Structures are given as structure tokens and as C-alpha cells.
């Protein structure tokens, strides 16, 4: 078993580095210092961390105002509250206003497992992806997380970074370079393409390994940018493999699967399976339990790929 990492550590370290290089960078939090792992940032830059308390609407509005005043705010809070509570501010004050603000949704997806559906953030990709001008990024490992932080600090405009606390291995090599809107092909294979995002990427790679025992060569594509989506990569995946499985730790409505399907059906239609949370509130359970429950595991992905290929063969 390879070493596992909490991507929040890479996020916090990269943000401190970026802040050292650019004095305009500030952080805005909603009493989320510890959960965002920003104690080090606060110690290094006490004046540049604004805690607005438990007030998400104000948090995003304050960030818009800081950007108006020439700052580059990173807003960091638990993703379910940041996105849902402040969605109108995200739409109007940031996206419509083209404000130079970086939203960092922490502990997204099913990471708060046992705390229940109030704390699950399995709708955040659908909500943010629907908003014009807002780029949406889901890093898969610490390396990509750090690079995404530096990239959004460098690029002007509003971004949403979705960051999990679920442990993941490094899936990218040391020379990997994250580029906005570009998918990374982690594995080649022409029988089926597995397009995954975030914490599901490592599981998709394991599923591909399992599939070799079935005589199936699966491509694995990390779709780290959900918006703007890498349409060329999706079309290429459809063309090469003729079958696509998407995997996300998010509702199957309007997330990665929806985004990929929108491209596939309008360009190069192929059979698809969309794996995720099937439109329900999750039961009580640990994150690992819930991923198992919804089939978001290497075995579950393998089974979906085999079923897809069988169904296609029978057509």
C-alpha cells in the first residue's frame, strides 16, 4: 500500500508559499482555521487572515470587497456550507463580478461521513459548475493540489477548488504539471475509458489494474478541471474506447458524469455509466463505508465497466 496523504496539508503549504511570493494574497475563513489546516498561515501572516466567524454569506462578500481593494483572497471553509449557504454571493459577487477570489471548499464530498447528509457536500460540483465565469477544480492528490493552488493564485478571476480530507496516494509523477482545463491521461487502454475526479482517481487506477485480470485494458483519465471541461479529452476517450465510465464522489446529477455526458452525446455518442451517489441522501457511516455502500470502490468501478461492456456487446 502506498503512502496516503491528506490534501489539505499540501493546500496549506502551497498557500503559505504563494503568500510569501505575493503580498496581495489574503485568507478569509468562517471559524475554519483548524479544519482548513491554516494555523501555520495564521502564524506566518497574522494580519493577512480574516476570520469573519460563522457567516458564509458575509465571508464571500468580504472576499469580493477585498478583491475590489486589490487583494487576492483565498476563501477557505467546509464545502457544504461555503457553497450552499453563500451560493448567491458566489454567483453575483464573484462569478458575475469577475472578482479575483479563490474559493476553497474543504472536506467536500462524503468526507464528513458519520456527521451525516447535512455535512456531506455531494452537490457542490453541480452548483458551482452551473455558474458562468467560475472555474471548478478538483485535485486528485497532494501534488496536484499544490499546483492548483499556485495556478489559481497566478490566474485572475474566480475559482472553486474542491479539496477532500480523505487520504489519497500520489497518483501523478514528480514531473506532472497541472494545467487548467486539461485532463491528465494516467493510463492508456482502448477497451473502456474511466474518467474520474478527486479522491476517486486513485480508485479508478486500482480498478483498471483489476480489469487487466478480466482481459480489459482501461484508460484512466483524471478530470481535475470540471469547468472548463477538457472536451477534446472526452471526445478522444469516446473515440478510442467506445465506452466511458465516470466516477465521482458526488451526486450523479450534474457533476462530472453530467459534464462528460453533455459532451459525449453531442459529439461522439458512446455508452456510458455514471458512478456516484445515486440521487439520495447518504445513510450514516464512515467515508470508507459510504464509498463501499455506493460502489465507489475499485471493485465497484470494475463491475460497472464489465457490465457496460457486456451491455454494449449485447446491443
Amino acid at each position, binding site marked *: 500500500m502506498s503512502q496516503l496523504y491528506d490534501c489539505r496539508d499540501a493546500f496549506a503549504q502551497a498557500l503559505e508559499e504563494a503568500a510569501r511570493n505575493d503580498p496581495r494574497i*489574503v485568507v*478569509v475563513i468562517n471559524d475554519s482555521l483548524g479544519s482548513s489546516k491554516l494555523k501555520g498561515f495564521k502564524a506566518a501572516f497574522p*494580519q*493577512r487572515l*480574516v476570520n*469573519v*466567524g460563522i*457567516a458564509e*454569506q*458575509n465571508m*464571500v*462578500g*468580504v*472576499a*469580493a*470587497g*477585498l*478583491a*475590489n*481593494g*486589490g*487583494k487576492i*483572497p483565498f476563501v477557505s471553509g467546509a464545502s457544504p456550507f461555503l457553497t450552499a449557504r453563500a451560493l*448567491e*454571493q458566489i454567483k*453575483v*459577487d464573484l462569478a*458575475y*463580478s*469577475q472578482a479575483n477570489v479563490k474559493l476553497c471548499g474543504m472536506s467536500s464530498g462524503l468526507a464528513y461521513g458519520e456527521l451525516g447528509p447535512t455535512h456531506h457536500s455531494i452537490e457542490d460540483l453541480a452548483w458551482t459548475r452551473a455558474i458562468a465565469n467560475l472555474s471548478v477544480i478538483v485535485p486528485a492528490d497532494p501534488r496536484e493540489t499544490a499546483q492548483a493552488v499556485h495556478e489559481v493564485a497566478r490566474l485572475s478571476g474566480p475559482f472553486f477548488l474542491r479539496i477532500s480530507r480523505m487520504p489519497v496516494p500520489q497518483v501523478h509523477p514528480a514531473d506532472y504539471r497541472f494545467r487548467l482545463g486539461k485532463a491528465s491521461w494516467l493510463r492508456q487502454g482502448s477497451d473502456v475509458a474511466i474518467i474520474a475526479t478527486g479522491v476517486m482517481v486513485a480508485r479508478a487506477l486500482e480498478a483498471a489494474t483489476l480489469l487487466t485480470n478480466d482481459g480489459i485494458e482501461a484508460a484512466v483519465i483524471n478530470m481535475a478541471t470540471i469547468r472548463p471541461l477538457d472536451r477534446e479529452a472526452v471526445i478522444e476517450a469516446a473515440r478510442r474506447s467506445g465506452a466511458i465510465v465516470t466516477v465521482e464522489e458526488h451526486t450523479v446529477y450534474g457533476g462530472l458524469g453530467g459534464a462528460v455526458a453533455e459532451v459525449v452525446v453531442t459529439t461522439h455518442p458512446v455508452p456510458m455509466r455514471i458512478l456516484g451517489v445515486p440521487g439520495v441522501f447518504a445513510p450514516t457511516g464512515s467515508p470508507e463505508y459510504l464509498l463501499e455502500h455506493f460502489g465507489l470502490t475499485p471493485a465497484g468501478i470494475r463491475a460497472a465497466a464489465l457490465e457496460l461492456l457486456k451491455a454494449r456487446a449485447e446491443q
Partner: protein
Amino acid sequence: MAQDREDQLAALRRKANLLRQRDLVMIQRAGMGHIGGDFSALDILVTLYFVVLRVDPQHPDAPDRDRFILSKGHCAGALYNTIAEVGFFPTSELETFMKPLSRLNGHPDRTKVPGVEASTGPLGHGLPIGVGAALAARLDGAAWRTYVLTGDGELQEGSNWEAAMAAAHYGLDNLTVIIDRNRLQQGAPTEDTIRLEPLADKWRAFGWAVREVDGHDYAALLEMLQSESWEPGRPRCLIAYTHKGQGVSFMCDNVDWHHRVPTPEEAERALQELREAVHG
């Protein structure tokens, strides 16, 4: 000096009267707008833009400019007329108000209209943005100031009170909120809808320095907005008592004129009243 002051006040009065006439014509032409709230806010806007604010229409993005944020974005008409007169864009462009592809949308868009600091429309957004701007100036040790104009009905939005707590906590005495207290929201008086009073006490309790003023009295507005005697370390709240539809007798304090468009006859009567007022 006294004569200078009188001249200044008379000039503001004439300016506001002119802008009310233009706004009325603009709304009449567009067939849409929020004339009641435009007219309650116009004297405040004119006082800010022609005396108080340090802004330069030739350099709308100058880093050290004062920031004015119109939180009651539906009163874009009053803002457009004011900043066009200041010189941020040609007054002739007011003819495009709400026409297809005009940058003068029914609510202001900061990405398109020079001089607009915040894209507003949904209520309760302006004050949080103002708090952020004031924090940015504080972080830089900069002298520029931030002003936010809110409606009174919009104080029913909880986001304002989140922002009010934060502004007081951070001691933002470089931030001024002006409340256009015309006492009417879209459908009814604020006090019949969800009561705001005792409004001054609420802001005081939230840690703000509070003043109350007649929002149509230029001398009083200037005295408050230029005063240095506010409590240091506290954000400033100026409750401006105004009348919706101020300047036109049959619109004044009448809830029907929140977003009603005058008929040609009503528009002519209103213009007549405004013309007489400036000559009287």
C-alpha cells in the same frame, strides 16, 4: 464662506433636480425602472459624488479612489444618472437604459460600467463587500474610504447583520453605511412587513457609531459625511430619513411608485413639478 456654502447647496439642489428629470425621462422611455427608490436616494448620491467622494472619472480604477457601493441595486437608474453626470460615461448613453445589449442593465454591472464598484441586485450584498473593501484599505494603511448605500427594507436580509458584526469587530471606522430610510419596501411599509425599529438602537448595539439625518437636506448630509467627530474605531452608520418618490407630489411616500412607470400624462405633470421646484 457662508455664501460659498449657500452656492454649493444650491448647486447640489439644481443637480439633483436635473437628475430627477433625466431619470424620469429615462424610465419613461425604458418602460421600466424603480423611480420611487431612485428619488429617495438621489440627494444622497449627488451629495456623495459631487462633494464627498474622491473619485476620478478619468481613472475609474485608481487604487486609492474612494469606494461607493450601491447595495440597493434596483436603484441603478439613480446611480447611472449620477455617475454619467460626473463623467464616467456619456449622458447620451442613458437613452440605452435596459435596451437590448446596453451595458446599462436594470441592475449595475461592475464589469461593464465604469464607476460601478459592485454588481448588485439581490439585496444584502453591498455591506459585506464594503466590509471587505474597508479591510483591504486597512491592510494597506491606505486613506481611501468605503461608503455603502443600502435600502431600509433590505436590512431584513441577515447578511447585513453578519457584515455589521464583522465591521464592528474589526473596528472599521473607514467604512460608512448610509441607510435610505424611506420606510417603504416593495409592497408595504417596512414596519408593517417586518419591523426594523428601533433601527438606530440596533446599529448601536452592533457596535456602530450612529447618526440620523434628513436625507434630502444637503447641508445636514454634508455635515455628517464630512464630520471628523465620529467615534474612532467604530464603523459609521448614517440613517438618512427620506421619502420614496421625493420631488414629485403624487409619488411621494406612495408605495405604488416602487417600480411603477409613469403614464405620459403623469410624466409631464412630474416634470412640470420638478421644473417649477428648481425655479421656485
